[in-house]
């Protein structure tokens, strides 16, 4: 077993709010520069660019997990990581059926590009992806589990789109696999939020919308057999010697 660096919350050019530098080879080479071993691609309500990232990562040493950042009917963001591309596609279908029909206005909200591994634009997604789907956060978490996926409450420290901001607290029996804290928190601020996480694993990620958001100070180290979805699932549960390390330096503020 070894320590691996991971960033489980990265957007691509499919998310309207992401910058156009978030192309497939670009994300992979930026992660290599930062020695990041395991990433999750989590566009808003869609996994359509996961395949491009998967292909672009071939032979790079960066392992890609397919995921989505799903927005619930209560405007809560949940990271839903899937075991493979096939499951991601099936889960995405479930999400798509619940997405309200409002169309994107690229000039106002940004482009929603579906790309291949060389950044060729294959399609422009027409329905606005940053909308709450017709399912609650709790339903999304349950559905993710039924697909064999992992659910993570996104940026619970933020004033908007967080489970805690909208619903006040995380119920003890909520079967969510981890909670995410923003990379921008200081160590002491993060410790304040640790209490709200209950006994769950806490990760720190970049929520990158542009390449320069990706960096070591917005990652989490984990003890894994190798960087993979399965090993991550063990680490989030803290079993078989796998575990997630507290992302902040305990000795500095």
């Amino acid at each position: 077993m070894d320590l691996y660096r991971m960033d489980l919350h990265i957007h691509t050019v499919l998310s309207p709010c992401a910058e156009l530098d978030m192309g497939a080879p670009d994300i992979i080479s930026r992660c290599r520069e930062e020695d990041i071993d395991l990433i999750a691609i989590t566009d808003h309500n869609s996994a359509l660019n996961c395949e491009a990232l998967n292909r672009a990562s071939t032979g790079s040493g960066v392992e890609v997990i397919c995921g989505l950042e799903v927005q619930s009917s209560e405007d809560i963001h949940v990271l839903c990581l899937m075991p493979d591309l096939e499951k991601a596609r099936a889960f995405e279908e479930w999400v798509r059926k619940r997405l309200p029909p409002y169309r994107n206005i690229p000039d106002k909200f940004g482009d929603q590009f579906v790309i291949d591994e060389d950044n060729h634009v294959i399609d422009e997604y027409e329905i606005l992806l940053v909308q709450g789907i017709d399912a609650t956060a709790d339903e999304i978490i349950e559905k993710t589990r039924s697909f064999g996926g992992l659910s993570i409450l996104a940026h619970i420290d933020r004033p908007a789109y967080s489970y805690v901001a909208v619903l006040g607290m995380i119920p003890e029996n909520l079967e969510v696999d981890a909670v995410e804290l923003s990379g921008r928190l200081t160590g002491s601020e993060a410790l304040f939020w640790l209490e709200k996480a209950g006994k769950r694993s806490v990760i720190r990620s970049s929520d990158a919308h542009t390449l320069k958001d990706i960096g070591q100070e917005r990652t989490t180290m984990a003890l894994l057999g190798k960087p993979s979805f399965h090993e991550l699932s063990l680490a989030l549960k803290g079993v078989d010697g796998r575990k997630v390390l507290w992302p902040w330096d305990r000795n500095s503020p």
Partner: protein
Amino acid sequence: MKIRDILGNLEGVTTHVAAGEDVEITRGFVGDLLSFVMGSAPEKALWVTIQNHVNVAAVALLKEVPLVLLASGRVPSLELKDQCHKEGIALASVNMDSFEVCGRLFAMGVRN
């Protein structure tokens, strides 16, 4: 009723973005969950909310909201202010809470 008159008839108003002061408003909506507002608000209605995230401007744009009233004295984020300015959406904070603001608006003849 014109935006100018609505704002003039409420106490404790701080205007952040002045726009469309002569626009006539007959309808109103209240809600803080952006998804819900997007799905349920009538078009061209004023919107009372305590949500001050920048995405309020995006929802306002989609629903053609001419005036956003931030209740309970909520202050808009800088991004929200900028975005409303860019899109020509009037934005003001009111010290009253949502319940009281809606009561006053109803009394002025604004309906859902």
